[in-house]
């Protein structure tokens, strides 16, 4: 349960060791660069180099994506869980050595991809041309046929309804003398009538005008070939284009063989890009450079060993100053670290917070189990998480924590499920009743929530009170640690006093007895003490809460306002009734599923229907209730628990390290 102690590490070294030192720091990956500005020193402009590497990263990355579309890698469903692959540093340096060639391959991949795309576009264009030629196919001269010595020819389209008679009528209407004209309708379709007209060259102009007045248009770009031949030629061209595409695809396949090298080179350039980014931040003098940043204290000896003793440099270690805000790293054991993801998504512990992981973890798995509360579901969740953890040892760190969290949650669910007698709802009872005519009822170890919902409600609220008292206790602990004893007394002690008094007053009342079916009778002394405690606490809060204000009226006003927070406590406690509600929801829906499945009775069809209902129904119920349990357990932690003591305004640690996408390089 700890935030790691941070220290500021500053290094001043010779420029000639710059590259080596940065590479070492990057491979250690434990320093967050945070440079102290100094006017007298200059910085190197590394942006051109950075851009160059960025471009190379981009090129290799694009090549990998293209390869993946043409020659997809066989990947299992869980590929995303596998993590990066290990490579020997020897193989890696070999790939890096031939990086020029690899980048050329990557460029070639992009070029081939472009070629293929262009050819595909050409094919599409040619196919469109073939389509546009269809109506002209029966024409036996080229579309732009100029005619013979004496005659000329017109081809073009007219309205779809136009008939041969219409055209002759048009010609006659235009000029009676236009008789020596031979008009043919080549074809007709929905959009147009395709016509040709042959006439003596002298009158051709008139004919064209006559037709044009009636909607005749020439083809936009007539081909100088007989349509049929033209189409044939296009088809040949398409085939050769397709053959070329096939060749290109084959080339892609051979190029895909270098995928592993491209991956390594992509990671190499990514590393160099990061390095140059840091390099650009560093203040430098003529011969030396300075580097400063935050590092977990426990990593500092390693730096001294790896850098201070090997290079000519000064390594200076300082404690963090009061006004600095160092980044936060959590460090917990295997159990408590599982919850870190949940804590992080609320916010890392800030300057005045302690790391709440361990205690949150305990409550998280208890509440989660209580909400899911089905032994079989719990067992399934645990086993699935366990198998995934074993099967994918290189899974990402965040994912591993989540899986471990759910594994523990599953175990807790198993326990609660057995206590409440829920195994796939009331599966055992239904199956034995329907199929074996001999009803076996699985007895809960403790009690069945449907029989005694009030007991479970009381239990839920009790958990709520404990949870929030612990939260308040942590606040007191933080205050005492900071030697703010008055705060601890006023903000926590008085509340404890009042709340305990109120609870003790509530316990012997009828209303509590009717809810919990438990009767408490205290001796009158205790009752009096309870009243005194509640009153003393309330008066204390009224007087002390506004102590930061000098104005006495304002002070009492603030006190009264804080006292009003008692309603907040009431709603917070009632909020824990969700433990009961969600727990019941799982069990009831599970028994609805079982009942539906068993409706077809005892027969072969009945068994088949039951199995279907069982598998799909319970899968769905488990998924929805897992989600519900996760969301509402998180909410209880975030709102009711963290609200009592936790700020969560810490800054995550962002060290200078190798951000590889594909490979992990094994150290020699």
């Amino acid at each position, binding site marked *: 349960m700890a935030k790691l102690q941070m220290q500021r590490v500053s290094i001043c070294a010779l420029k000639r060791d710059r590259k080596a030192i940065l590479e070492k720091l990057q491979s250690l990956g434990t320093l967050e660069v945070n440079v102290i500005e100094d006017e007298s020193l200059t910085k190197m402009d590394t942006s051109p180099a950075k851009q160059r590497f960025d471009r190379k990263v981009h090129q290799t990355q694009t090549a990998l994506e293209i390869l993946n579309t043409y020659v997809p890698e066989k990947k299992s469903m869980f590929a995303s869980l596998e993590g990066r692959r290990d490579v020997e540093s020897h193989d890696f340096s070999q790939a890096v050595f031939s990086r020029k060639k690899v980048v050329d391959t990557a460029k070639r991949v992009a070029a081939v991809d472009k070629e293929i795309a262009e050819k595909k576009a050409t094919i599409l264009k040619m196919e469109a041309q073939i389509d546009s030629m269809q109506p002209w196919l029966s024409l036996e001269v080229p579309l732009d046929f100029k005619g013979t010595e004496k005659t000329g020819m017109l081809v073009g389209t007219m309205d779809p309804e136009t008939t041969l008679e219409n055209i002759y009528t048009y010609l006659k209407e235009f000029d009676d003398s236009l008789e020596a004209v031979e008009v043919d309708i080549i074809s007709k379709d929905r959009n147009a009538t395709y016509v040709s007209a042959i006439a003596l060259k002298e009158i051709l102009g008139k004919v064209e005008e006559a037709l044009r007045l009636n909607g005749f248009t020439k083809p936009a770009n007539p081909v100088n070939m007989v349509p049929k031949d033209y189409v044939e030629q296009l088809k040949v061209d398409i085939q050769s284009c397709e053959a070329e595409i096939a060749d290109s695809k084959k080339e892609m396949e051979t190029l895909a063989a270098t995928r592993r090298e491209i991956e390594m080179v992509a990671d190499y350039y990514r590393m160099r890009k990061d390095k140059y980014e840091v390099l650009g931040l560093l203040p430098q003098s003529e011969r030396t450079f300075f580097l400063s940043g935050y590092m977990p204290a426990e990593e500092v000896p390693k730096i001294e060993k790896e850098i201070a003793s090997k290079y000519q440099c000064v390594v200076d270690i300082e404690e963090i100053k009061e006004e600095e805000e160092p980044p936060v790293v959590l460090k917990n054991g295997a159990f408590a670290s599982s919850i870190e993801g949940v804590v992080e*998504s609320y916010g890392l512990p800030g300057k005045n917070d302690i790391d709440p992981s361990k205690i949150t973890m305990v409550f998280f798995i208890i509440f989660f189990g209580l909400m899911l509360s089905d032994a079989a579901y719990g067992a399934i969740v645990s086993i699935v998480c366990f198998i995934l953890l074993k099967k994918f040892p290189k899974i990402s760190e965040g994912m591993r924590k989540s899986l471990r969290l759910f594994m523990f949650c599953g175990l807790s669910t198993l326990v609660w499920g057995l206590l409440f007698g829920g195994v796939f709802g009331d599966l055992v009872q239904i199956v034995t009743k329907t199929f074996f005519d001999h009803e076996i009822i699985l007895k809960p170890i403790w009690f069945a929530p449907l029989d005694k*919902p009030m007991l479970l409600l009381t239990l839920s609220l009790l958990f709520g009170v404990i949870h929030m008292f612990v939260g308040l206790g942590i606040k007191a602990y933080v205050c005492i640690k900071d030697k703010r004893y008055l705060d601890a007394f006023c903000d926590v002690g008085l509340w404890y006093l009042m709340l305990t008094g109120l609870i003790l007053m509530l316990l012997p009342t009828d209303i509590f007895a009717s809810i919990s079916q438990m009767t408490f009778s205290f001796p009158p002394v205790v009752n009096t003490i309870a009243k005194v405690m509640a009153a003393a606490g309330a008066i204390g809060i009224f007087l002390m809460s506004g102590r930061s204000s000098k104005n006495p009226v304002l002070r009492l006003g603030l006190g009264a306002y804080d006292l009003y927070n008692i309603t907040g406590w009431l709603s917070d406690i*009632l909020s824990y*009734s*969700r433990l009961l509600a969600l727990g019941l*929801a799982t069990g009831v829906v599970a028994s609805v599923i079982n*009942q539906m499945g068993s409706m077809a009775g005892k027969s072969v069809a009945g068994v088949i229907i039951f199995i279907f209902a069982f598998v799909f129904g319970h899968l769905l119920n488990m998924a929805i209730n897992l989600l519900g349990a996760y*969301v509402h357990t998180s*909410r209880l932690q975030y709102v009711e628990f963290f609200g009592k003591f936790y700020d969560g305004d810490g800054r995550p640690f962002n060290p200078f390290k190798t951000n590889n996408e594909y490979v992990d390089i094994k150290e020699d």
Partner: protein
Amino acid sequence: MNGLTWALLGAMLAVILAGCGSALGVGLAGQAAAGVVTEDPSKFVKVLVLQLLPGTQGIYGLLIGFIALSKIGLLGGGAADISKGTGMMIFAACLPIAIVGLISAYHQGKTSVASIGIIAKKPDQFGKAMLFPAMVETYAILALLISFMAVSAIPV
């Protein structure tokens, strides 16, 4: 109407209204989620979780409906002979989850839409995004609690 009809009406309203609310809410959130996935398919799981949040009211309605049905003996076995007064009591007991379920699921759906907006812009703020719709659900849970306690306490 006799007692059995009143009780059945209550059970049906619990399922119908709460279910409609959830359908509205999940539908609203689903539209927003689909939009985010068009832009960035890797956010699928996160937005799916947010989409499903308003779906619980329907389950709560089902839960109350189921308990009410088994109370009046309509599941297996013969229907119990219940007086009109008892039937109306069961009807009244079903109302909280029916009405609160309808309205809270609709508004939870709208809140989910807003939270999906958070995921679209800041996917690392998932924990906080999840919290806003969960706040709305509190009231459905309170209604469920009262409906449940009332239905199970009514003697038949």
